[in-house]
């Protein structure tokens, strides 16, 4: 257990939350810290139904935990994929590459990456795979199909920005 989630996961999920549920951004820090403390428990909470008592609103969803969980799966997939392709030799380098893939999509890092000239991008086939991974993970969290697809699309959109 750690206090914070992986920075790459945090970056990707924050960007997606910003797109899909900007209202949740003020709570992103608290949610991601809670997620990092116990991811297994987090998954249970995301899947669980609401308490029967309470105010009476029986449905509702905070998207952020699900986004983090899906981003985690996507980042894991990307790492494995890049390793498989043999583009980099060592695990640490793969991490860097994943970071590159993510950071070139982040507006804040655009200038820095452009200056460094280090770019990495995903092929259409890889993006399609990413979408599939994201949808599957979202559905495994009991998200409705349409919401899972929207989440996956937002994630792919973040990863799909072509290198400069």
């Amino acid at each position: 257990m750690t206090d914070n989630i992986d920075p790459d996961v945090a970056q990707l999920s924050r960007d997606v939350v910003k797109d899909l549920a900007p209202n949740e951004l003020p709570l992103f820090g608290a949610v991601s810290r809670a997620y990092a403390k116990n991811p297994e428990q987090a998954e249970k909470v995301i899947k669980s139904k609401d308490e029967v008592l309470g105010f009476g609103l029986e449905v509702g969803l905070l998207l952020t935990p699900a986004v983090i969980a899906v981003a985690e799966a996507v980042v894991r997939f990307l790492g494995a994929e890049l390793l498989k392709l043999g583009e980099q030799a060592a695990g640490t380098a793969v991490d860097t590459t994943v970071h590159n893939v993510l950071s070139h999509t982040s507006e804040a890092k655009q200038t820095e990456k452009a200056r460094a000239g280090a770019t990495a991008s995903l092929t259409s086939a890889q993006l399609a795979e990413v979408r599939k991974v994201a949808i599957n993970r979202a559905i495994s969290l009991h998200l409705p199909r349409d919401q899972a697809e929207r989440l996956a699309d937002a994630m792919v959109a973040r990863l799909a920005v072509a290198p400069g």
Partner: protein
Amino acid sequence: MTSSHVPLDKTLLRPSLDNQPKPRLNPFAFPTDTDFRLLLHVAMIISSGLFIYNWIYLGLPQAQSDISIYSRCQHMAQIAYPSDSLASSEFFERCRAPVEHVKALWMLGGVASVLVLAVALYLIAPPIKLRRQGLVPIASDDAPEAVIELRGLCVKAGLRSEPRFVWNPLNGSPVGLAFGRRGSYYVALGGGLMVRSYVDPRGFDAVVLHELAHLANRDVDKTYLAMSLWQAFVVLALVPLLVTIVLQPTPGSKFAAAGLLIWRVAVIALIVYLVRNAVLRSRETYADLRAALWEGSSEALSRVLGSVPDLPNTGIHRLLAYWRVHPSRAARQRALSDTRPLFRLGFWDALGTGLAAGIAYPSLVTLILLVFTGVQSNLWSLTTGELAGFVTSIALGLLIAGVVGLGVWRATFAELVDGKRAISVAALAGGLAIGLGLGDWIAFEGGFNAVPSNPGYGLLFGAVYVLLLGLLALGLFGLLEWFAKSSGRWLWRALERGSVPNPLPIVLTISLVLSLWLGATLQARNLFEIGASLGVSPLLYPVLAGAPLLQAVFGPLGLVALACLWAYPLAAELGRTSVKGFPAWPFLDQPADLNLTAPPTHMRVARLASIAVGAAAAYVVVITALRLFLRMIEVAPQMTDLEVLLLFLTQVGLAVIVQGCAATVTAVKADDHPVAEATLVAFWAGILMAVEQFVLNVAFGGHADPRAVWPIFSLTVISGGILAIPLAWLTARMTRRPTGP
């Protein structure tokens, strides 16, 4: 709430102008439905628990040795008193008493264990919930603005001590939940709700205030106690009961036990569960109202409620509503603008109460009989069995008074303000009577009720049974009608004094009167059921049913109940004080307009007393003339026992006739409460006439026998008082006066 200054004297408050929104009545001035329903829930669990543990006892090895003790005691009793069945029976009672006491202790212990487990579950529920749901305190770093807002809301709610706000940031639900135990409360906020604090602050406030309102309304403990009771009941009562059925030695006994118990278990479990859910539902509306009051507007809350998913209010969904732990969205929104539905009580509430009482009655009687086995009682000439019935009736009278009586009390307040009936007393009386009748058969003991196998006898049995229920319903109708009318006087007095009415004397009064009526009718039903099961001739059914009725009515409790009929409305007249200005407690809003009508007239006690004294004076003349006449014809000094009895009955009969005349005269002149005034006159005149009878008897050479005091007094006062009721009612109807107390 409001505190304007509209003069109240000689007027009745009635906010009107039909085309304007009515000001909301203040439900917080009265005990809530949550309290009523929790009371029912507890009563159901205790009574069902008593039977279940009685049944479980029968399956214990101890029960087998008890049977041999019974046989030995019976044998010894026959040997000790071969020709005296009464002494033999008393010996048998004393002999088996230790066994029955152990059984009673076992039953009480079983119920106590259910209650102890319920309390334990209630106490450990908060830490379990915190851990299971991963709830942690909301830190300032997590959502600084929300934390500041939460503190502000606690100040707005005026809570003495702030609850601890907790959340699980991963839980996306848009809800709050107040929970905890006395002295240690929490409000859990869903992550979705915290998001609302940024995008819809007023909606966030509305939901949080609703949760804080649960704390202010003190319903959190009731809620979690209700839930714990249900859980404990399932674990320590229903499950062991089912185990005893499974463990029956033979398939035949398994089948018999299942046939006897399974459907009853299912029905009772269903009722307990539905009552539990009713507890949970009723609190929500009160919390909504309190939250809207704090907020000063119900707009935000109503908007948030608009996002609550709702089921259609038709067909099966109407039934499913009883299964839910929240009222429908529409009902909650309606209650925000009109609180009058909270002042109504209907057939189903009464039926539920009647069922709870009906199911509880046999178990409680059994318990008391077991506890007092071997104890010979001679209180008021009642047997232990009769006393057990009356003690149980007092408990059930309190239960019914707490639920239906207080419901009528609240509805009377709405009627006083709106000028129209908020409830149907006939529906309530019918619901109670049907519930009490059904409860007798649904109760586990109902499995041992015997119906005559002969179709003709069975038909007669059914007819007497239904007749008794009809009589029960009729009496309940009269009592509730009387109570509603008399309560109007008390509530009017509360308006005059500007103080919130205290319900305790009300509950005690109605429970006392109800206890007597329930005691008499249920005792009658039991006796006739026992007679039927013992094969007594059906011709004796009416006698078996009628004897306990007469015994109860003409006993000390009958006298007290009769006195309540006039003392309760009369007491409202005492200590009259009128406060200038409009009282603050009746409404949640400032009434736009007051359409004022005349209040109920006061009871003119001096006039009533003079009628009673006049009647007694007339009576003493008549009775003196009678005694002088008897002396002249020289009958009195050498009267036989029969003649003494005839003279006694004649004197009582004349007294009753004079009381009836006085009651009729009173009712003709009475304004708002003919029955109460007529009963008062008959009662007071009856007391005077009883004294006159006694004194004249001594004066004409009779003995001053103290044993004669009670028969003279009870027969005269009670007979006249009872006769006064229908006479006053009829007189009031014929002279087109309102038929009130």
